């Protein structure tokens, strides 16, 4: 085996590739070099996939990173010296002068993917499953087009540049605040987690409604915002997706199934009368519809049949 590279050597090369690809922007020459390396030994593709997967899974740490723990964690001395901007990020962000993050871009998540995207102005997006956005930041305005799906926005304060989310005809305007927007066929759900936002529809621009922390409203594309409701107790639950969770609290099985199916290729189906209206309570992982189905089987006295594509829940 002397002339053959050991698994260890290949692993080291794969790690170097992952780090390098993370540092350099992708370009043709780099891709060509990577492909040449991959083709040099049939085992390299495996080592590269493993290293790349380990690197990518760490992105999950960031989805909730800002709002959780970091606030309570005591910075070490080194953090105090070098981590000024980090502390600013925790405190609500206003002094991130350094160019960082996204300035102009299209962002797209695939089914089951939840991604956190920092913007150049210090704002932060948590993008839910199957969503599509266009970000455009310039000197007078910060605009994000939510073309599909759902996103939670934590907006950095900047009085000179309003932050506007465009979801079809629906508009949400914020200065420094945090809120989520989820697009539906005829309008969007807006949920405010911090500060105040203004919502309206381009079709009824005179009808503007202010929503403050804890408020929830459906904004219709045709008519503009409906009555706002206080959803303070609901917010953590409805935004649990940022940590990869689905939290049910008296929701019907029918609604829960629709929610799970947003995240998974393997779809849940309910069969038989009455079952869909069963109420459920519990916390589940978005990517574990099997565990959910098993829990339902026990609590609702149902039967679960699984094949590769579908998980059927039916009456016993």
């Amino acid at each position, binding site marked *: 085996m002397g002339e053959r590279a*050991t*698994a*260890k050597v*290949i*692993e080291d090369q794969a*790690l*170097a590739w*992952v*780090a*390098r690809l*993370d*540092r350099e922007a992708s370009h043709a020459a780099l891709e060509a070099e990577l492909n040449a390396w991959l083709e040099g030994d*049939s*085992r390299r*593709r*495996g*080592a*590269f*996939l*493993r*290293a790349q*997967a*380990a*690197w*990518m*899974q*760490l*992105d*999950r*740490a*960031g989805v*909730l*990173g*800002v709002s959780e723990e*970091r606030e309570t964690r005591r910075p070490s001395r080194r*953090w105090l010296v*070098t981590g000024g901007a*980090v502390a600013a*990020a925790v405190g609500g962000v206003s002094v991130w002068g*350094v160019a*960082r*993050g996204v300035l102009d871009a299209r962002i*797209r998540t*695939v089914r*089951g*993917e939840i991604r*956190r*995207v*920092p913007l150049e102005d210090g704002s*932060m997006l948590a993008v839910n499953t199957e969503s599509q956005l266009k970000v455009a930041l310039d000197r007078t305005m910060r605009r994000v087009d939510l073309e599909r799906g759902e996103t939670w926005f934590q907006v950095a304060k900047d009085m000179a540049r309003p932050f506007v989310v465009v979801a079809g005809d629906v508009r949400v305007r914020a200065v420094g605040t945090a809120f989520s927007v989820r697009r539906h066929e005829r309008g969007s759900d807006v949920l405010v987690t911090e500060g105040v936002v203004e919502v309206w529809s381009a079709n009824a621009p005179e009808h503007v409604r202010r929503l403050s922390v804890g408020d929830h409203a459906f904004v219709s594309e045709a008519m503009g915002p409906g009555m706002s409701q206080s959803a303070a107790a609901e917010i953590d639950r409805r935004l649990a997706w940022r940590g*990869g969770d689905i939290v049910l609290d008296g929701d019907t099985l029918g609604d829960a199934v629709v929610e799970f199916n947003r995240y998974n*290729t*393997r779809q849940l189906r309910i069969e038989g009368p009455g079952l869909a209206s069963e109420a459920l309570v519990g916390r589940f*992982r978005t*990517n*574990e519809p099997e565990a959910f189905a098993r829990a339902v089987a026990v609590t609702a006295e149902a039967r679960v049949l*699984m*094949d*590769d*594509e579908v998980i059927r829940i039916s009456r016993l």
Partner: protein
Amino acid sequence: MDDDRRRVVAWVGRDILPHEADVRAWLRRSMVPVNEIEDIVQDAYCRLAGMTEVGHIANPRAYFFTVARSIVVDRMRRARVVRMETVAEIDALNVVWDDPSPERITAARRELERVKGLIAGLPGRCRHIFELRKIEGLSQREIAKRLGVTETIVENDVVRGLRLILKAIAEGEGEAAEAIRTERSHGRTRDRKGH
């Protein structure tokens, strides 16, 4: 990376890596020589790398074990050596993957904590760099500027940290993450007690 590839890489990170330590433990129980285990695991990832679609795989853990088993069987055939222990373990394989022990379910639930734990377990500057890159979302270049070091140093620390994380994954994440932490607080001379 196109969408198909990204989906496969994300799936491997989320649904395959967490079972790697168990697959390795099973290979050891199957009396596969230690120097071959590394090759078999790498070979298993090679086969996964050939996939463009993963949505049809209902049980990734079982799939991972099945791939590893077929590699072991191929190797035994080629070497014309049959080890009785290996055959026995291979026959009992479905017991291993079909057993979603409570600890395992809990482990899957704590995906986020697990990933954070992997980063928290890294030593000094390495950890700091991973936090800035993965939690704060800074690029390697921005990190270099922030810390006042060269980009090469940052890139090398990414390699070093990721190597420790892969080691943690191979050894069983909880234990190994703890091992790294112990090593950090007690100095590098302290030996980790395996079991």
